[in-house]
């Protein structure tokens, strides 16, 4: 029986059917395009999320990635971060894809609120959450009941000396990230950058988690009274979505054509009278 999860390798009674190869590739292409659609949907849904960095998806076929000589290994593909679409097995040519986050500066919006901060340039704010240290570009901060600078979900914003307690009536952040309360500097915001951005993983609530440690940020500015918008380009997303859908459709047509060819071979050519 041909079941869905076997469709990558289309077996009949345990024996792989070689003439289904064309279909395999088409199905994998459809699965990859479906994943791309999901990535685009998330980008568009987050058009108004502060500090949101858009995601993208790239598709590669095994042959292109391999470049001929290197012995194909699962580990190599894995190292590069690609996942197989559908049921591609070790040693099979097939469609691979990966998602990535496209880090770029979003537009700064002037809000006038002293607890709104935006980063102009590289880097992230460091936040102490109940789950560990997280990083974010979302500078929409506030105060908690004990007077500490927190994110909107109550997690502490980290300065170089730890959590930032604001005991005073005037609060200023300089472009360097230095925190001034009532005119005197009490701390500096702990801003971090990552030379290899691929190590950042989104965890939701505008947070990123990193397996690597970050380094200090040399050049960025912190703007008080501003918020960074999402860096999605709506036109780009719509075009990508159209491309994904047409690619999906092309693969679907290919599958239908293969199906017809098979039908001809099975029902007409091979007809037993």
């Amino acid at each position, binding site marked *: 029986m041909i079941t869905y999860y076997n469709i990558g390798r289309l077996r009949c009674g345990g024996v792989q059917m070689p003439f289904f190869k064309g279909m395999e590739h088409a199905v994998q292409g459809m699965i990859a395009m479906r*994943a791309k659609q999901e990535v685009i949907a998330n980008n*568009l*849904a987050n058009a108004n999320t502060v500090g949101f960095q858009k995601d993208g998806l790239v598709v590669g076929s095994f042959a292109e990635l391999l470049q001929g000589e290197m012995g194909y290994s699962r580990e190599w593909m894995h190292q590069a971060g690609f996942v*197989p679409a559908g*049921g591609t097995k070790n040693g099979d040519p097939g469609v691979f894809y990966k*998602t990535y986050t496209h880090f770029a500066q979003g537009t700064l919006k002037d809000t006038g609120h002293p607890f709104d901060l935006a980063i102009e340039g590289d880097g992230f704010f460091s936040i102490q959450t109940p789950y560990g240290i997280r990083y974010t570009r979302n500078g929409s901060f506030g105060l908690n009941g004990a007077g500490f600078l927190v994110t909107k979900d109550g997690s502490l914003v980290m300065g170089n000396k730890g959590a930032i307690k604001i005991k005073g*009536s*005037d609060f200023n952040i300089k472009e360097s990230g230095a925190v001034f309360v009532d005119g005197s500097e009490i701390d500096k915001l702990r801003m971090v950058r990552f030379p290899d951005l691929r190590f950042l993983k989104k965890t939701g609530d505008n947070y990123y988690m990193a397996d690597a440690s970050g380094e200090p940020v040399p050049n960025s500015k912190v703007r008080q009274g501003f918020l960074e918008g999402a860096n999605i380009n709506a036109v780009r997303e719509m075009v990508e979505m159209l491309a994904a859908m047409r690619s999906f*459709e092309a693969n679907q047509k290919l599958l239908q054509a293969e199906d017809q060819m098979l039908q001809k071979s099975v029902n007409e050519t091979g007809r037993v009278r």
Partner: protein
Amino acid sequence: MFRSMFTAALGMQAQQSNMDNVANNLANVNTTGFKKGRIAFQDLLYTTLAMQNPQEEIIQASDTEGIPNGAQVGTGVKSIATERIFTVGSLQRTDNPLDLVINGDGFFEVTLPDKSKAYTRDGSLKMNKDGSLVSPTGHPVGVTIPKDVTNVSIKEDGSVMGIKAGSKSPDPVKIGQIKIVRFLNPMGLRPVGGNLYLESSVSGAKVKGTPGSNSLGNIASGYLEKSNVNVVEEMMNIIQAQRAYEMNGKVVTSTDEMTRMTIQLHKQ
């Protein structure tokens, strides 16, 4: 397949909330002392695009060794708060000496019937029958005008001046002082309607003083503070919300189209 549809549906809901907020802002464009709102959004959990069949010998997309993740996708957006923006609104001249505006940071402090304090930007003060200056909601500001005093005026620093009946001098004398209060985090104040706000645990340190001192704003008499809603900005927000709503809608129809194509694979 349907994850992108649900994600897009959440996106549309978010834009709907956005529109609701804009509608409220525009409805209150002429409300004295109204402070515009904005909504804070956050993205939801990210999930790894694991393969369909765990029994197959396929390495999962999720990683625990620090290697960049193969395939992660978000699941949409949620709104977490509606916040008030405390910038100064536009001024409207009334020539009524008891109409006050704080030009800068600060709130008028009023006393509620249960002796607790509330704060407001609405300075359209009136005198009640006892001569006490009260806010539009009827709560006393803390200054009482004696019965025999006329020509009440209020200066930039909050001094209440008047001419006592029977006084020889034509110059007004000081009969009271209005003090105002500012907060470190006015966004943390709790709104209770009638343009009144209550102090909360997150509104931060409070500074009470004479207008003009200690970063407190000056008082302008004969003016009212209208809302701080910027109509042009809200119009832009409408356009943006509508287009974003449309785009999310396109994702839904496009996903629907892809589903239809998948179903058509099996054509009888």
